[in-house]
């Protein structure tokens, strides 16, 4: 069977199960006796095993099989869930994650050591059980010994060399008097069969449905314990004919063949006549008309998995649809007719509804990325020997998939910062009069058209004095400049490129990605970052994110004949100024606005479009915010606020373009560039 078409489904679902395993294990680490989580781990490992085996991923299957065994022992209380087992299980999960990720890439992960380790853990507990099984089977063997010699004549297919006991002989005698035939059935199981004992149980059940089993070779107990090779024989007293017996027994999967022979008991002298019993018990597999009646109430499936590319495409198409709608509106209004008004307003409503639906369908609960953090925080806390109580709130808040994909890394960074630099070690905390366990809270909530994510810790916070010193040491600013900043402005220094607040660089954070990267990523998504911090009390970092990135509110501006879109999230306000009020400081044009110096940038110069020959006296300025600073952009005209659909510039030629977040198509079919304030100025 070609399984490649199932790979995506396999990966997606495996990740869910891995997540469940991770979560349960984290819970179990806290409450090792929690049966619910033990069971759920067992189930998840089991399900994953089945899936992996189906796909032919043997390493995953073996590893999950080992986990399942281990969890089964834990479940049956034959193993105590101690730290060594929990650590081993975590190690398993890490390997599984790597394995699932590398599926199809041909990379192999070596898990032989791990398997060995688990094997040992399982074995350490199973010696006792084995001993029990052993003594059981000895007993059954002894029971089967008492036999009296009776000669049996066997014909046709199968030779049965068996001596019946007194009890059995009596049964045979009774049965033959009742008109039953004694049949020996040799059942041959397919050599690919795995659960032979269960298979034999099915055959035995089917056999007892059509008759009375007098003897089984080997004994039924041995069949149950799988103490046989590929065949076993049943001696059956039945009123059915040979063909029915054969078809009843062979009608079990993985049964290769059933060979029959009639046993004639010489000493009882019964006839070997086979009665044609037509009115008999229903055979297990007999036809059944009752089920043929069916109702047509097939319940519909509640949810489907859709590839994210599909949704992206759909969003794009909705965008096009809206653009076209605007175009039609425009052209109709130019025609000056009102015959289409009703149809147009319906179209309006429909496109709006489609847009909302498509946007909603792209929303994913934020828990999808939150759920990987408890494990990360636990591991970090463990390596740093800190005690941390990690709280997650607002897992159900939904965000656009694209936004969600982008905020993972910034959140990792913020959480690491908190564990690494924020929360102190237990001794230090006790010295400070705090509880030895630090609290780290990750929460999400909806605020109007945006989602707020907060990372809050009760650690050492940020000391403005240290921040000033570091800023000067790192050459971010001069001593004098640093002293001029207010304490709240000083905290924003952590966003400055090249600034790292760590006293010492640790293994965990303080390398490479800094807060400036976090901020630029969030701003790129049209969001913003704010920090609150108090020395020795803790820090709170707040990310404000838009619900979606595909459609943004923009301020449309005109420069000469061209239209540009400025994302509204960057716009502070617009102001009209007098050209004569512009002053020049260090060759930079500025204006005093609301008692503050506002640097001015002529968008014409920045975008290399012709500057109007003569300055008008009244100029229009759009005040935008970049990294907490306000900057004024001089434009020719404000055209108003509008929702625009972003078409990203991600082709090979355009992907490195700075200053533009993308382009959008306007109602008249022309293209407008969307300014990216973060990289433009």
């Amino acid at each position, binding site marked *: *069977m070609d399984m490649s078409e*199932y790979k995506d*489904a*396999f990966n997606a*679902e495996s990740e869910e*199960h891995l997540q469940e395993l991770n979560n349960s294990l984290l819970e179990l680490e806290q409450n090792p006796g929690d049966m619910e989580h033990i069971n*759920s781990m*067992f*189930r998840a490992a*089991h*399900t994953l*095993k*089945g*899936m992996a*085996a*189906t*796909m*032919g991923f043997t390493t995953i299957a073996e590893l999950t*099989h080992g986990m*399942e*065994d281990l969890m089964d022992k834990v479940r049956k209380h034959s193993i105590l869930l101690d730290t060594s087992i929990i650590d081993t299980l975590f190690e398993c999960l890490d390997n599984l994650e790597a394995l699932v990720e590398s599926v199809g890439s041909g990379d192999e992960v070596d898990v032989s050591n791990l398997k060995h380790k688990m094997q040992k853990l399982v074995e350490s507990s199973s010696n006792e059980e084995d001993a029990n099984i052993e003594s059981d089977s000895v007993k059954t063997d002894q029971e089967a010994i008492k036999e009296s010699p009776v000669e049996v004549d066997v014909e046709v297919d199968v030779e049965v060399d068996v001596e019946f006991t007194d009890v059995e002989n009596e049964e045979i005698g009774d049965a033959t008097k009742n008109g039953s035939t004694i049949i020996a059935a040799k059942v041959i199981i397919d050599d690919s069969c*795995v*659960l032979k*004992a*269960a298979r034999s*149980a*099915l055959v035995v*059940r089917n056999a007892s449905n059509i008759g009375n089993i007098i003897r089984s070779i080997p004994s039924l107990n041995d069949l*149950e314990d*799988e103490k046989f090779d590929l065949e076993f024989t049943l001696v059956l007293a039945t009123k059915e004919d040979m063909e029915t017996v054969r078809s009843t027994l062979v*009608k*079990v*999967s*993985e049964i290769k063949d059933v060979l029959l022979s009639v046993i004639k008991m010489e000493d009882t002298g019964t006839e070997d006549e086979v009665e044609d019993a037509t009115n008999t018990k229903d055979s*297990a*597999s007999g036809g*059944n008309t*009752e*089920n*043929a*009646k*069916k*109702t047509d*109430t*097939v*319940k519909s*499936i509640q949810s489907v*998995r859709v590839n994210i590319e599909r949704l992206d495409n759909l969003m794009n198409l909705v965008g096009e649809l809206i653009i076209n709608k605007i175009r039609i509106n425009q052209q109709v209004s130019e025609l000056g007719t009102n015959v289409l008004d009703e149809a147009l307003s319906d179209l309006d409503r429909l496109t709006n509804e489609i847009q909302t639906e498509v946007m909603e369908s792209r929303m994913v609960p934020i828990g999808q990325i939150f759920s990987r953090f408890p494990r990360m925080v636990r591991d970090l806390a463990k390596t740093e020997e800190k005690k941390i109580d990690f709280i997650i709130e607002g897992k159900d808040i939904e965000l656009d998939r694209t936004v969600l994909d982008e905020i993972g890394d910034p959140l990792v960074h913020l959480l690491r910062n908190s564990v690494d630099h924020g929360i102190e070690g237990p001794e230090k905390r006790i010295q400070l009069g705090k509880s030895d366990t630090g609290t780290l809270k990750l929460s999400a909530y909806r605020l109007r058209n945006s989602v707020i994510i907060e990372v809050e810790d009760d650690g050492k916070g940020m000391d403005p004095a240290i921040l000033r010193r570091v800023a000067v040491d790192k050459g971010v600013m001069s001593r004098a400049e640093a002293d001029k900043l207010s304490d709240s402005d000083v905290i924003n220094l952590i966003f400055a490129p090249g600034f790292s607040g760590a006293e010492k660089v640790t293994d965990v954070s303080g390398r490479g990605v800094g807060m400036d990267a976090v901020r630029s990523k969030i701003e790129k998504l049209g969001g913003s970052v704010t920090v609150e911090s108090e020395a020795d009390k803790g820090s709170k970092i707040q990310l404000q994110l838009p619900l979606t990135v595909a459609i943004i509110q923009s301020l449309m501006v005109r420069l000469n004949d061209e239209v540009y879109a400025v994302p509204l999230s960057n716009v502070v306000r617009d102001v009209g100024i007098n050209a004569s009020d512009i002053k020049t400081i260090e060759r930079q044009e500025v204006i005093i606005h609301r008692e503050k110096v506002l640097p001015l940038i002529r968008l014409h110069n920045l975008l290399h479009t012709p500057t109007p020959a003569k300055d008008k006296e009244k100029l229009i300025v759009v005040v935008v915010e970049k990294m907490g600073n306000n900057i004024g952009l001089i434009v020719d005209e404000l055209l108003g606020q509008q929702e625009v659909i972003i078409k990203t510039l991600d082709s090979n030629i355009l992907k490195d373009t700075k200053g533009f977040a993308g382009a959008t198509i306007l109602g008249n079919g022309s293209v407008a560039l969307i300014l990216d304030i973060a990289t433009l100025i």
Partner: protein
Amino acid sequence: MAKVMIVDDAAFMRMVIKDILSKNGHEVVGEAVDGLDAVQKYSELKPDVVFMDIVMPNMEGTEALTKIMGMDPNAKVIMCSSIGQQSVVTEAITAGAQDFIIKPFDATKVLEALNNVI
């Protein structure tokens, strides 16, 4: 052709069985995600045959099997098991399961089991 209900907590496994069945002309009339769901859907859908996973949340396959057999003694339930579940499968057979198949599923065996019970 048979009307089949598939019970498995893994959507992936349901998809695999479903594809095998529908490619061979059988109709999957319903899917259930756990034992509870299966019991409820069985009475609604009245499928000819049920493919029942064993290890599932909320209600395990064997319990669901017992409940279904209780509602309809003629129900045809094929257990979907993994290696290493011999005793559970035997228990299921005692409880009335018609047959069982082993993961990883092999199309011929799935069809063989189905053809044997219908």
